[in-house]
């Protein structure tokens, strides 16, 4: 418990979390501080490229692990299965309609790549190694949750709009293409490639992450300020409970797979996080009648801050304890 509290305190006072807190506070206080849309996108492109590249270099260094395929498969299973658990919880804990519950559930099966990036940064600061291919697992976990949510709707006789364009947008959305593309570039070029661009993708990484989380704080604070009325107590409680359930499943599977401490922690983070980029866009197309105020505010305004501040140190500490590090 001391270790968890110590890691949580260190994490809470890190520049990354304090930048996020500044964004939330500025937004709630109605400051005119804002990050232009183009700048926010540029920061996200940088982070995705850097994290993908470094993951690829790690795989190039350590070779392909036999666990890679199994971990990818487990990631897909978790992504497809978590929405079903989330949907059941939502039906018990909240009065959400089937449509809204399915839309929310999809977010909790998919992943938040920003939470993943922040977790890798915490692991790096703590000197805990992780499997480089967890980047590929993150990419694999984006889409299956969407299919599960649509299955939940069609099972209840509801209508959903799934077309080939949406398939393309889900599977080839910019985040996935960049993350996986940078992963392969890092894998192909290895340490030599990293040396060539390390002054760009290694040294400035945390500073850029701070600015990006400042922006995420502004967006999250704005969502909470404007849409918090959409969330009832049961829905809010779900936003905290579901990450704990997801991370527990992630820990169990991570241990079964024999992942390293960092790998278990990252699988916990991926299972605990909720999407707010790919899934909301897919839900707007496939389930336009679902209320975006509920799933966007819950994912970005409740679960994301929980994971960023308390969740990540908790998951890292639990992973360390479970793997005996």
């Amino acid at each position, binding site marked *: 418990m001391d270790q968890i509290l110590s890691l949580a305190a260190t994490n809470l006072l890190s520049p990354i979390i304090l930048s996020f807190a500044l964004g939330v506070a500025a937004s709630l206080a109605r400051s005119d501080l*804002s*990050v*232009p*849309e183009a700048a*926010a*996108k540029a920061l*996200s492109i940088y982070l995705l490229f850097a994290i993908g590249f470094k993951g690829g270099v790690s795989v190039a260094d350590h070779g392909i692990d036999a666990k890679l395929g199994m971990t990818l498969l487990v990631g897909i299973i978790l992504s497809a299965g978590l929405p079903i658990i989330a949907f059941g919880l939502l039906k018990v804990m909240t009065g959400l309609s089937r449509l809204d519950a399915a839309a929310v559930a999809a977010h909790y099966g998919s992943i938040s790549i920003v939470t993943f990036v922040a977790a890798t940064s915490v692991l790096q600061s703590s000197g805990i190694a992780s499997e480089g291919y967890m980047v590929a697992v993150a990419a694999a976990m984006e889409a299956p949750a969407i299919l599960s949510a649509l299955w939940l709707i069609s099972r209840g006789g509801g209508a959903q709009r799934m077309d080939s*364009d949406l398939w393309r*947008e889900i599977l080839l959305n910019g985040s996935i293409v960049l993350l996986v593309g940078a992963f392969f570039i890092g894998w192909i070029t290895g340490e030599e490639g990293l040396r060539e661009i390390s002054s760009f993708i290694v040294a400035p990484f945390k500073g850029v992450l701070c600015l990006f989380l400042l*922006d995420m704080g*502004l*967006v999250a604070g*704005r969502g909470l300020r*404007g*849409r918090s009325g959409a969330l009832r107590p049961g829905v809010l409680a779900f936003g905290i409970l579901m990450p704990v359930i997801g991370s527990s499943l992630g820990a169990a599977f991570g241990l079964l797979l024999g992942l390293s401490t960092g790998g278990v922690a990252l699988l916990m983070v991926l299972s605990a996080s909720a999407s*707010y*980029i*790919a899934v*909301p*866009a897919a*839900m*707007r*197309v496939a389930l*336009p*009648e679902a209320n*975006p*105020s509920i799933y*966007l505010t819950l994912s970005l305004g409740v679960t994301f801050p929980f994971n960023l501040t308390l969740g990540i140190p908790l998951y890292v500490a639990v992973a360390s304890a479970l793997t005996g590090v």
Partner: protein
Amino acid sequence: MKTHQAKRVEITIEAIMQSRLTDALRKAGVTGYTVLPVLGGSGRSGDWVRSGEIGRASGMVQVVCIIRPDRLDGLLEAAFSVVDKHIGVVSILDCDVVRAERF
């Protein structure tokens, strides 16, 4: 200068639906349109601003078409097949254009 009557249709729609809308318009023979960014707004679904957003789920765009009055119904049918269940606004204004052959 001689001017000609036309209809200006402004469709404010979720950014994620933009390509579906413009594809539907093209299929209906409407090949001329302009897509404008929308910075923010407020409506039945709440307030929103574009700044800082990295996803497309909460953004809006405006598609503007200027057409001959006799083509209005075809355009609206094509547009409504896409936008009927989505957040947005469709408005139609009378306007005058100088070069009628272009519309």
